[in-house]
């Protein structure tokens, strides 16, 4: 997804709005692109930056060939600044650096662009600093904030940006694409529920770790149903050794979440939406074991565990608490 026409096929509205404002030379001083993973936030900001700098534009389409375009692509353009989270968050120092950068004149041109990825990860300090020069942009500066959760961004920042909501992708498309690449239909369905990115999805699909993870999640639900007293043991012997990293743990919880969602779907007879299509027997058993109320409770508990993980709670503790709640 590199050109405006590529983007227009996925995000027709955003592409149209941006190309029009480029054509009328009314590019806003700050944009907030919000959309889930894989909706093309980064691709859009890249193409927009290129369109701003490229000197050989064909209409609004940058040439992708010239020095400027290529250096934006490789991250070496001196007047395009990428801010990516340093560890868990975007720190004050990173914004400070940006601020200093903007008191200087541009290195090659008078035009400057800064792009903040995962903008919701800015610390409170960083957001307030950013606000300062988002408010008083120097001439010819364009800010682009990328986020998957615009509600987590300071209201004061949001109000100063032109918000571009990107359309969520249709998982069916991805599923089809994955099946064409040779994944089994059940896997394709599951993975397209987890990610929107084709390359990432294929990577997951060919990963043994993921196949095992899927098995362990299903096992856990069985243990919870049949032998709840052994659930703790299962967590420590099977679950924790497999989901070592925080990132992996999140993925495991995502799978668990999908499982309970499936139970809800089978309650409401929405069989088409079920994701674990290979495990229909187990699902119908599960729907006999869990009541509707219990399932929705479980969903909430899982979301809470996910949130705790993000807030640096010890993974083992978060997981233990979750199982205690689930087996009741």
């Amino acid at each position, binding site marked *: 997804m590199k050109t405006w026409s590529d983007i227009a096929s996925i995000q027709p509205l955003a592409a149209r709005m941006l190309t029009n404002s480029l054509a009328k030379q009314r590019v806003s001083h700050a944009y907030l692109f919000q959309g889930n993973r894989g909706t093309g936030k980064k691709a859009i900001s890249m193409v927009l930056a290129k369109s701003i700098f490229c000197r050989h534009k064909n209409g609004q389409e940058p040439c992708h060939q010239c020095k400027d375009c290529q250096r934006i692509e490789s991250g*070496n353009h001196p007047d395009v600044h990428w801010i990516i989270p340093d560890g868990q968050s975007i720190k004050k120092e990173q914004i400070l*650096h940006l601020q*200093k950068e903007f008191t*200087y004149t541009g290195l*090659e041109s008078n035009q400057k662009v800064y792009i903040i990825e995962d903008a919701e990860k800015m610390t409170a300090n960083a957001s307030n600093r950013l606000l300062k020069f988002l408010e008083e942009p120097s001439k010819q500066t364009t800010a682009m904030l990328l986020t998957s959760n615009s509600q987590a961004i300071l209201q004061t920042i949001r109000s100063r940006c032109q918000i571009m909501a990107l359309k969520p992708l249709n998982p069916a498309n991805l599923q089809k694409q994955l099946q064409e690449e040779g994944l089994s239909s059940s896997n394709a369905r599951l993975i397209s529920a987890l990610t929107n990115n084709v390359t990432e999805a294929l990577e997951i699909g060919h990963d043994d770790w993921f196949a095992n993870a899927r098995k362990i999640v299903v096992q856990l639900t069985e243990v919870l149903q049949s032998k709840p007293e052994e659930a703790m043991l299962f967590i420590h012997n099977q679950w924790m050794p497999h989901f070592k990293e925080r990132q992996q743990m999140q993925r495991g919880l995502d799978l668990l979440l999908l499982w309970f969602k499936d139970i809800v779907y089978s309650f409401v007879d929405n069989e088409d939406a079920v994701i674990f299509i290979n495990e229909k027997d187990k699902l119908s058993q599960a729907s006999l074991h869990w009541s509707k109320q219990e399932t929705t409770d479980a969903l909430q508990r899982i979301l809470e565990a996910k949130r705790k993980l993000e807030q640096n709670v010890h993974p083992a503790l978060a997981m233990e608490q979750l199982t205690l709640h689930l087996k009741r």
Partner: protein
Amino acid sequence: MKFVIQRDELMNSVQHVMKAVSSRTTIPILTGIKVEAGEEGIKLTGSDSDISIESFIPKEEDGIVYVEQIEQGSVVLQAKYFPDIVRKLPEKTVEIEADNHLKVTIRSGGSEFHLNGQDAQEYPQLPQLHTEDSFELPTDLLKNLIKQTVFAVSTVETRPILTGVNMKVEEGHLNFIATDSHRLASRRIPLEEANSQVKFSSVVIPGKSLIELNKILEGSEDSIQISVTENQVLFRTKHLYFLSRLLDGNYPETSRLIPEQSKTVVHSATKELLQSIDRASLLAKESKNNVVRLMTKENNQVEISSNSPEVGNVTEEVAAQSIDGEELKISFSAKYMMDALKAVDNEQVRIEFTGAMRPFIIRPIDDDQILQLILPVRTY
């Protein structure tokens, strides 16, 4: 790209450009040094995006051949390894060759290094010279200009524009002005006729860049060419180009700050006054701006005193050449005063006061080029 070069010359140039390379940069390509082989010789470039230094090694100079077998081309080499490699090579000559896949081979005597280079296309393009906007100065005069003003730039980022030195051409004079809003340092020199049609009017050069430039330049009578482009300023000596980005924004109008009349004028020997203020500042507390007090007395005596109740106090009388006008008691920061007196660069100074609550001016006697202005401190 290929060339054979004298190692010492290369080392010298590499050391120059390394001063601009910083390991903490957000732009990956700037961790490298750009090596460019052209018909005339070899050009090295280093940059941290704020300042960029280019060093040129000519093919031959004064009959001495520095570079041979040039095949044109350019490549970016890792600044982390290249300088050390060059320093430790065994022979006097170095052969550097880059192939189409950006693999660089460095040969000297029996040793052979292979380095992975980066594409020179990725390197920032430095602006081309606009020679019509340039003027020349002797290098030591420029060093003086920097030394006499740059200490007064602001170190806090609350008003970023004040972290720079304002360079201005007005009525055939070149002005350097720096202020941190508590003090102001300025120097003004006449430009030669040949330089009088310079076009730019006012730019602000970051103080940090000027300090760096001052370190690199050797004091000599040779002239240095200064060119100003839209967003950069270039200082150019024979083989060394120093580029700095400018600060964006309007520099505050400072001419109105300088009082035109004065009520008390003190003439004094610079050194004696400086030393006595230095002594008085020993007891002045840093947390309270090193405040010292100056009081005019009869018989052309000036009393310098400082008092911090917990520590003790100091009083000293200095004989001035002359004191004209009203009596005066004034307090000011010893540090600012000492900086200003050091910058005056003359054995005699003239200090013009306009009351205890008004800024005062320090100038060398009979010379209007240097001006230092300090705001007093209010004490009760």
